[in-house]
């Protein structure tokens, strides 16, 4: 039991690029970040988390590949954020969402999508601060 607890603590302290289903994913990634939907995934998601520190909020990311193009991915997340009445804005191809409410339990987040033509599986990075 003690060994298991030490193991869980060890792998869950600021986990970096962990896959779904791993121990670090369940114990080290906030539920609100695990709940971020993926759109047409063509590469497995990887989750990272750096814990909060005083006034500084935590920093979480989920990075995966999507088979959709840039605008389709943005449109998907725009719809999803709107369900949580988030304050939305877009700048330089990045979608920013602030102060969301249920069912989107994110305080401050953004979605950045790999630019470029002819990419069949483009990298999508969703970042959440303060989870």
């Amino acid at each position, binding site marked *: 039991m003690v060994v298991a607890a030490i193991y869980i603590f060890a792998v869950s302290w*600021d986990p970096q690029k962990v896959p779904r289903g791993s121990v670090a994913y369940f114990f080290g990634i906030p539920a609100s970040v695990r709940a971020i939907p993926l759109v047409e995934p063509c590469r497995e998601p990887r989750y990272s988390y750096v814990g909060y520190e*005083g006034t500084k909020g935590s920093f979480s990311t989920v990075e995966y590949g999507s088979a959709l193009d840039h605008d389709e991915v943005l449109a998907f997340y725009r719809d999803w954020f709107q369900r949580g009445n988030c304050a939305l804005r877009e700048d330089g191809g990045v979608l*920013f969402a602030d102060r969301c409410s249920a069912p989107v339990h994110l305080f401050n987040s953004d979605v950045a999508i790999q630019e470029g033509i002819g990419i069949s599986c483009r990298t999508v990075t969703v970042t959440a601060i303060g989870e």
Partner: protein
Amino acid sequence: MSTFPDIAEGYRRLQRGDANYGLIYTCNAGWVDLGHMNPFNSDPLVGAHNLWRQLQAGGPDAQISFWYDYPPEFRRAGYSKDVLQAMKSDKVARLPDGGRGFKITLKMAQPVTGGVTESFLVRHELPDQEKRSVALAVFLMVSRAFEQHQFDWEFSLVDWLSQQLRGKPYDSGFSQEDLVSNLIGFYIGVGHVTKDQAIRMCHPVSRETAEKVWQVHGAVGKNKNRSFEPDLSARTGFIDNVNKVCRDDCIGQPRQFPRAFQQIVPAPYAKDFVLLRT
């Protein structure tokens, strides 16, 4: 405490107008941690903005803790016998002069070690200017206590575990940029300046220069700063090997902490606020 990769994150966010995480170097405020500088938080007890909201909202008369008759540090605060007796009999918290107030709480937490949460009794119906002074005094007290808490854990099993598990030392306590960034965030949180104004006044150098400052002086976590005044580097000028010129991003800047972040005077302890048990 920030790490070297946080510089890239800070400048990436600065460029796209989303400066709420990462590390930048500035001519007038030294290293600024954009995460510490962010006064907004989803937890209503965390951050300068939520502290200010509590002070503005006020509240009912605060009660003394169920287990104790007096506030902590009541001797230091100079309570008279009559006021202590009154608190003991009706359990309503009082300031040393007998005035009543409401309770506010500020939390600065972190995983593994817990962090610091402090509650305070604040006099009712203070004018806005005095409220800001109380807010600053409370914010500085808790910020210092939190950094000390982190510092106390540095030379312990936690540091060893951090090295083993995360590959980086646990050297967060009084990290060079923490208190200064907190203070700038406070002025944003109480509405004295906007985040954009604050960043402009600090005057960020380029990412390249920031990385060179790090290389010259070392990690911010190793360079301790126990004050709310920045440690400024004199080495912001470098030879640009591409263009073969000497470049200094801080030429023309005063290289002094902006006065805008020194305008509020912290309230003296025990005049309009005292520590309460949480």
